[in-house]
């Protein structure tokens, strides 16, 4: 119900005024959530930590999104048959009832130009483009049987993050913080980091709050300019000056609180104090220059740059400090093969080089700090890519078109299996043959790992209880250790 926010403030008032006990108060307000779950939290701050529905496997999430969608056939889902049939027309059955974003006419099969081999104890077979990933593949669950309903970037990204292909609904990180609050009130609970120079295709709705209160929207932390918008004091004002002015502000606000008796004023006073603390804590967490050289070496980071490597290190620093949900977008994975800047031979290896080392470093770093056990890391694009060469307008560069019927993602930490491959596709990697996992199933599973029942985490809007998984989704128990 939308009263949640206002009522939670009403609770704040009572809390501040001390007229009522802390008590049950606004507890039934997290609509759809069992009151018993909220009982343990029992405070008014909408970002205050709240107990989940049941014992969680992970407390926080780092979601690594490769915007544009990397080709599964060249990285994770080994298909020797494709190489065998390379250059031959694809089977007619591939074209029946199909719409493609760009492919026209009868395309030809495209075998992966890259070698695959098994790695680690579990022997997960992956591509030579991911040498660092080989060293962590014993820690991951690889899902080769993901599928989606959407075959264009923006709708597919929105579908993945909001459960619906058009912008309007809350995103996964918003649901997570709505359900659980956050563990560090000096930092935003849901942080978004972007690299590759572009926002995701789906725009801000991929990390928005939809019709949830806006307090749950993802806060984009930037590596260039203010890390959070307006976190810096104005030119000519130093920290001591800001403190002096906030002292005056608080004194006057307290007078006004007494005059009007409106507890919203008290909430506001506390939000200004929090803002003051964030002015220190946000730049502090965003400043990776203090990390020791071996950490920079591990991640391949260079302070002051906008890069996926920097963002991976930042993600670790953020979850270490209790941020609930870190959403990373890296732009540039849309491997169509229209030219050297988006092809399989030049561009894909370059992107993999940027990604592979820091992503593997993130897993190792979380592990060595004991954070991997209760942090879930997810790596995905928004859909898959075709088994056929796109050859748009007769392009001679190799590339693959959008493909919703199957793709690969992986997960690590947070109580998912280690060194496990889930699901399978046919020999041409065109359709799923075993254990399909739909986007709504993935969402249900992520919420489950966080200790929430996706059918109970609801929000009433326009007369209906909405949830991340719409009216679908099953937890994929097989992924859990």
């Amino acid at each position, binding site marked *: 119900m939308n009263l949640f926010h206002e009522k939670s403030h009403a609770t704040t008032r009572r809390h501040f005024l001390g007229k009522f006990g802390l008590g049950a108060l606004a507890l039934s307000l997290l609509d759809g959530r069992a009151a018993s779950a909220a009982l343990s939290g029992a405070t008014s701050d909408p970002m205050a930590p709240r107990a989940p529905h049941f014992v969680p496997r992970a407390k926080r999430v780092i979601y690594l999104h490769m915007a544009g969608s990397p080709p599964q056939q060249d990285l994770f889902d080994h298909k020797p048959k494709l190489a065998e049939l390379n250059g031959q027309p694809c089977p007619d059955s591939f074209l029946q009832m199909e719409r493609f974003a*760009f492919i026209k006419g009868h395309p030809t099969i495209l075998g992966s130009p890259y070698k695959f081999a098994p790695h680690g104890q579990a022997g997960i077979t992956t591509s030579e483009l991911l040498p660092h990933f080989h060293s962590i593949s014993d820690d991951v669950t690889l899902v080769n049987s993901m599928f989606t309903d959407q075959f264009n970037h923006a709708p597919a990204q929105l579908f993945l993050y909001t459960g619906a292909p058009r912008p309007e609904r809350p995103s996964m990180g918003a649901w997570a913080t709505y359900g659980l609050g956050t563990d560090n009130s000096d930092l935003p609970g849901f942080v978004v980091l972007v690299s590759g120079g572009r*926002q995701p295709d789906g725009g801000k709705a991929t990390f928005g709050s939809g019709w949830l209160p806006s307090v749950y929207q993802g806060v984009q932390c930037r590596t260039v300019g203010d890390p959070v918008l307006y976190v810096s004091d*104005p030119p*000519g*004002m130093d920290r001591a000056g800001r403190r002096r002015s906030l002292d*005056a502000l608080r004194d006057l606000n307290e007078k006004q609180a007494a005059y009007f*008796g409106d507890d919203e004023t008290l909430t506001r006073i506390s939000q200004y104090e929090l*803002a003051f603390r964030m002015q220190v804590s946000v730049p502090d967490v965003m400043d990776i220059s203090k990390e020791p050289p071996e950490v920079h070496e591990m991640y391949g980071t260079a302070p002051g740059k906008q890069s996926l490597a920097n963002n991976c290190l930042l993600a670790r620093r953020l979850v270490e400090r209790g941020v609930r949900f870190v959403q990373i977008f890296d732009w540039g994975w849309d491997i169509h093969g229209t030219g050297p800047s988006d092809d399989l031979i030049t561009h894909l290896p370059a992107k993999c080089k940027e990604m592979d080392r820091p992503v593997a470093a993130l897993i190792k770093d979380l592990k060595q700090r004991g954070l991997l056990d209760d942090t879930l890391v997810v790596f995905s694009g928004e859909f898959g890519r075709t088994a056929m060469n796109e050859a748009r307008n007769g392009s001679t560069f190799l590339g693959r078109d959008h493909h919703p019927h199957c793709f690969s993602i992986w997960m690590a930490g947070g109580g998912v299996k280690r060194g496990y491959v889930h699901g399978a596709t046919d020999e041409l990697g065109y359709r799923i043959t075993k254990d399909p996992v739909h986007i709504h199933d993935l969402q249900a599973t992520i919420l489950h790992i966080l200790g929430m029942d996706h059918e109970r985490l609801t929000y009433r809007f326009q007369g*209906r209880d909405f949830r991340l998984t719409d009216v679908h989704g099953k937890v994929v128990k097989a992924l859990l250790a």
Partner: protein
Amino acid sequence: MLGVGVPRTSEPSSNAASPSPTAAGPVDFNADIRPILSNNCFKCHGPDEAKAEGGLRLDTLEHATAPTKKNHRAIVPGKPGESELIKRVASKDDDVRMPPPEMHKTLTPAEVATLSKWIEEGAAYKPHWSLVPPVRGESPAVKNTAWCRSFIDAHVLARLEKEGLSPSPEADKETLLRRVSLDLTGLPPSPKEIDDFLADTSDAAYERVVDRLLASDAYGERWARLWLDLARFADTKGYEKDDRRTIWPYRDWVIRAFNSDMPFDRFTVAQIAGDLLDNSSDDDLIATAFHRNTMNNDEGGTDDEEFRSAAVVDRVNTTMQVWMGVTAGCAQCHSHKYDPISHREYFGLYAFLNQTQDADQPDESPTFMVGSAEDKAKLAALDASLRDREAELAAYVAKNDTTDAGKAEADRLTKARDAARAEADAQRAKLPSLPIFRDLPPEKRRTTKIHLKGSFLTQGDPVEPGVPAAYGDLREGEPRNRLGFARWLVDRSNPLTARVAVNRCWEQFFGTGLVETVEDFGSQAPLPTHPALLDALAVDFMDHAWSMKQLCKSIVTSATYRQSSRARAECMERDARNRLLWRGPRFRLDAEMLRDSALSAAGLLSRKLYGPSVFPRQPDGIWAMPYSGDSWVLSAGEDRFRRALYTFFRRTAPYPSMMTFDAGSRESCLPRRIRTNTPLQALTTLNDPVFVEAAQGVARRAVREGGSDPKSRAAYIIKLCIGRAQRDGEAERLLSLYEGEIAHYRANNDNAIKMATDPLGPLPEGMNAPELAAWTVVANVVLNLDETLTKN
């Protein structure tokens, strides 16, 4: 919690224990029973005939008393003991009990008792209150008649007296002036307006102010802001590419419509079907851009029909929500689970809106060129001349004359062509073309079919245009097209439109609607706090020819509105959210008002009206979008300081401070902004260069206009920002801040210059940097005071 007994209205009595139904009078279906059934049963046993689990529907008496598949009777009127419904909801057995365990819902013993009592009393069903057209009843009798200024007050007071509460005294004049100025115009009063009002001690002083505000241009801008949220107005097309769209003339039409007090019924018909009116004017065509604000997908490989269909769905949902407070969207995929709209009826609505020419094309056709006949004629002439120049050049090039003279001639003709093109383009730029509604010619009309499970790809039976039966029907003789539909929306027989409109208006003034869910008046919505008042307002609105200004005036002149907003402990305990209106409204200003107020206090706000959207200060990097080279280029001069509603709105990257203060993304209709209170808001009003610039402006005004004594300047800053005299030692506290700051900045002149001038600009003649910097810090504090950010 629902008050189960008397009074049968939503909320309050909240903390006080509600009398149990067994103790009070007869059970009322709408107040007591429908919410229980709707919340717990209708999802599987409601109006959705396809669902009707076990063959049971509980939404009508006829269905509920009919034998189910297992030959049970859910309800046997007068006999709760024989009613399967009671057996099931009261059962302790998981296999028997309803709702089933996976629903995570269980009825309370009190709810079961209420259901039993209702069945015992005969199980009378009533249509949902919102389906019965409003009737204006007698104003209720009250004890404190002296307090009442209008019928509004009688309704409010009657409820307060019933609850044993009393209204608050009238707010002081300064508070009231600021409140009503912000509410009617979105702008705070100027110092002169404050002085004038304080000086006018006549009884009519307040009403004079109200009339002045209603007559000002700013009124239309303020109310357009609200309407633009509903219209999902934006300057881009949305989806991935999110290219620019020229549609600002529609925004200007809305402002003008409010300013001219266009009756709401005409306002409605123009937007839904202005193109179908006899002799429709240019303005009528521009108005139809309301529904061309739907998103347009230019991404490669998309199916235009999919996105055309998505736009029509959006139009159906938006129309039903904006005018009727009906959440029709559910019925796109299946019959509505709570409200009486079947899947088929949904597509009856869809059919009304399915005959327009637009089809998700990149050029957004059909479009309409806005401008005078003279300007259009001039463009036509320039275009003709351009064609002539092009023809001349082409003819000459065809001769293939390669001599020097020939090349010179080709050069001359090329220049002539380019000049003609530049001239035509310059004229075209004066004549914006915006997307509008036009119907398809009769031979190209579409046949509307049900979209099975909401998918445009799997279509079922054909459907004729029509409105859901429960809401009435078009008047006899009306065309069964968009125009007939538009007129039906504002027909007096329509039970919802006037109620929804007055409720939305009420919410703007009081922060919460009489029906809290302004977007949903259906079965799942909370009941109105003051149902008779809602109906009286609705009828009064129609009786005054749907005049929005009259509606606003009747609200702001009521004693209810004029109350002080100071809390009283005894009332806070009973009704902390002020749903009973025992005090005046107090809540944070919306995003646009915050910005406009700060710029206004600073004397920076431009009062230029209308025109293309503008680009005020925005941090770098907000517009880094895929597939777009478009960039944010800071507007020059006063366009930097226009009212917030003129700010260019890009759907995938909205203006950041607006988003922080709860504005939506304008991707779909936003009937209600949920207010939040966050640290990011504090950072914005403290540090956003727009607000720092405003603080610098306020500081300069204080030095210029606030007298020479620092204390009087501090008081003047309060007057500029909060519209009242300083109180309770506030000026002294600001003065002590000022003294500390000026000492600090005297020792740091470089910082003083930055604080006083970045980004507003060089120090004015005769002002010194440390002094101005110190006043800027003071102004920054005052602009961030709770009372400044709040309507008091």
